[in-house]
């Protein structure tokens, strides 16, 4: 009996608390040792998220591998995610052992050989080619800025994006070495689910998918639902054109999402997690699958996580191309393998979700904040932002802007600061004419509305939504009517067809807008659009139809004159409309 107890002591641990830390501590030691080994070799990091790929990042990565091989140089070439400086892609940073990281922007494959020779073989950074420098070490040359001093980085507060572009997303050890899974360890080793829920509640975190519902409250709903099988669904469908921050997080730091999901599972007593992504976005899909696999491999998923009594399983689920699949009940239908059409509510997901089990749906960005909040306490998040919108906004700036990219800025920053300051305003000395925010169903803001602060409520009062953080910028060369037509074509194409007011209403609105763009509009058209929009709002199950009139309403509010010019004077003030449309012929009608 005594011997048996001895074995327990030997293989288990004296107390619940220290047993947990041991499992994590050994992971941490292993990770740190690997990190030190990595630091002893020259390192190449190349941005190969979707934005990097589109700029040619994969070819550049191959060129650097080849250049290192040609010199028999034992360098680590990592394909990292997105630092957010998409304007500078392909972005490469080179690091001599013990030296600073030197960032080179807009690198072509032809430059690889020279950069490797100079910086990694001879140890002499090519300063005249450098964009920025980061970390202590070698002396910094005169006019090269530090990474934090770059216009685009100034004023950013990176919580969810803390690792993006810095760590190798395929290497779980690098995530652990930079403090990853510490939040999970803290929760499992000494916090009750209630305490974690209170902590997330106290941080003031609100859902980043668009609805901005308090995350702590949402989790409490699921805590009250009966088990044992409950689901945490992570929504990375992200069909909003102009938004790529969910995909960006998955491609840059997938484990922050996996950790956030496990923490959500621990808090709510859920047994299963599903990461839900669109088929075809191969980068994010592969990163997510690899992250789940690696987490299983290290005992961070599965039975008795980190030696605790908590068990949680996760998988990646793919969906076909469907914008509406991002709606929570349509998402559950798609996971079940059906057409992604929304369900009636109630029952709400916390009572009857995927496979009929209680479920909770969170956006990628929401879950990505959770590990930091739990590891460092709620003030890390609540200390940033405004009274009602805590934390940061993760923005994707695209369109007519000098520095398109992804940034994480404190809530409360004005649009002007973000767009004119960080992103550099419209290129070529043009003026920003309009902003399209929160996805196609969000809203349009006039270029004179830039003093609106980034805050869920302030944006809503201004007639737009912050939504998932995508902001499409248009300059004076854009026709507001033409853009509205494109948005409506998108909405029509993506209507799932379940509710006929949305299905036929979208088509009707699109046809009217096409008519207006062809200068065949009539004075009755604007009231007609309004009536169709009202019917859709009244007769649709989900936001797609309910908000379907938003793009038109907000465009009319700021650019009513342009609509009138098309209808009454039969001309397009911006000179864009020419009656040619090349858009899909298909629809789910």
């Amino acid at each position, binding site marked *: 009996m005594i011997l048996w107890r001895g074995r327990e002591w030997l293989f288990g641990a004296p107390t619940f608390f220290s047993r947990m830390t041991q499992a994590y501590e050994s992971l941490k030691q292993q990770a740190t040792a690997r990190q030190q080994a990595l630091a002893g070799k020259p390192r190449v990091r190349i941005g190969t998220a979707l934005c990097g790929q589109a700029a040619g990042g994969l070819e550049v990565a191959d060129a650097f591998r080849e250049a290192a091989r040609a010199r028999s140089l034992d360098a680590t070439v990592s394909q990292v995610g997105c630092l957010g400086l998409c304007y500078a892609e392909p972005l490469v940073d080179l690091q001599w052992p013990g030296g600073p990281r030197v960032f080179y922007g807009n690198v072509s494959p032809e430059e690889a050989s020279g950069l490797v020779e100079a910086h990694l073989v001879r140890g002499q950074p090519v300063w005249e080619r450098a964009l920025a420098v980061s970390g202590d070490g070698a002396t910094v040359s005169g006019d090269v800025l530090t990474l934090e001093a770059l216009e685009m980085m100034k004023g950013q507060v990176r919580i969810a994006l803390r690792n993006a572009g810095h760590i190798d997303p395929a290497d779980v050890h690098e995530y652990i070495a930079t403090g990853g899974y510490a939040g999970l360890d803290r929760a499992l080793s000494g916090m009750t689910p209630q305490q974690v829920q209170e902590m997330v509640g106290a941080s003031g975190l609100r859902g980043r998918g668009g609805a901005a519902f308090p995350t702590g409250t949402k989790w409490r709903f699921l805590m009250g639902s009966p088990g044992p099988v409950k689901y945490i669904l992570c929504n990375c469908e992200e069909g909003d054109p*102009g938004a790529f921050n969910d995909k960006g997080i998955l491609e840059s730091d997938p484990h922050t999402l996996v950790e956030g999901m496990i923490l959500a599972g621990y808090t709510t007593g859920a047994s299963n997690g599903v990461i839900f992504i669109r088929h075809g976005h191969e980068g994010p899909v592969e990163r997510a699958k690899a992250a789940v696999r690696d987490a299983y491999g290290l005992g961070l998923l599965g039975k008795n996580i980190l030696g605790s009594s908590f068990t949680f399983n996760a998988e990646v689920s793919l969906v076909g191309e469907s914008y509406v699949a991002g709606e929570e009940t349509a998402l559950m239908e798609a996971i079940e393998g059906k057409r992604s059409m929304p369900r009636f509510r109630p029952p709400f997901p916390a009572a009857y979700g995927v496979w009929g089990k209680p479920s909770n749906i969170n956006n990628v960005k929401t879950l990505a904040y959770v590990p930091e909040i739990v590891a460092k306490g709620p003030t890390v998040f609540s200390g940033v932002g405004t009274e009602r919108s805590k934390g940061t906004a993760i923005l994707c700036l695209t369109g007519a802007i000098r520095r398109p990219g992804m940034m994480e800025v404190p809530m409360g920053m004005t649009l002007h600061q973000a767009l004119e300051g960080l992103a550099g305003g419209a290129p070529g000395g043009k003026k920003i004419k309009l902003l399209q925010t929160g996805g196609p169903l969000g809203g349009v803001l006039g270029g004179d509305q830039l003093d609106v602060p980034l805050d869920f409520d302030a944006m809503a009062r201004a007639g737009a939504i912050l939504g998932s953080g995508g902001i499409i910028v248009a300059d004076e060369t854009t026709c507001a009517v033409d853009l509205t037509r494109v948005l409506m074509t998108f909405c029509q194409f993506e209507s799932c067809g379940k509710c006929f007011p949305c299905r036929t209403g979208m088509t009707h609105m699109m046809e009217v807008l096409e008519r207006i763009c062809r200068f065949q509009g009539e004075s009755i058209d604007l009231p007609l659009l309004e009536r169709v929009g009202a019917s859709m709002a009244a007769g649709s199950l989900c936001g797609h139809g309910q908000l379907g009139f938003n793009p038109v309403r907000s465009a009319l509010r700021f650019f009513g004159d342009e609509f009138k010019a098309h209808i009454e004077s039969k001309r397009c003030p911006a000179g864009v409309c020419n009656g040619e449309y090349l858009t899909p012929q298909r629809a789910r009608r």
Partner: protein
Amino acid sequence: MQPRGDTLNATIRKALESHGNGAVTVLSSLLTLEDALGYIPPEAIEEVAHLTHTTVNDVWGVASFYPNFRFEPPCEHVVEVCWGPTCHLMGAPAVMKEVLATLGLNTEGDTPDKRVTLKFNTCLGACAQGPVMSLDHHLVGRLTPQEAGKRLSGVVGMKGNRSLQ
């Protein structure tokens, strides 16, 4: 050459057995087959119905809903051009016009010689580099019409292809 008959059935079964797309459902099975074969043959619809204990009607309902699926053997190359709002603002219409002219098409679809499939995509996910297209699932951004035509010709090969001359 596309597999036919028994070979096709064997390929379908093999793909379905080894699929790593989460729980086995109608949709996950169809996506797996689309990846493996490049299209959904009628045999696959029946096989999926059998595997998931549903009807051919249910499977067809799902397959016809998502624009991912095609029902004829794939062409050699697939070209996708993004028409999302960002790409539209950054010049997608001109890129699209050039791509259509290069391929000799009026709208999305297959070239008559079945060498290239053109698809319009609502978002390829690289909005910061718009306008964007994808050539055989390889993203190309910051396009001008000239660049698009050049890259397209490079991938599909001008020579010996009537529809491209």
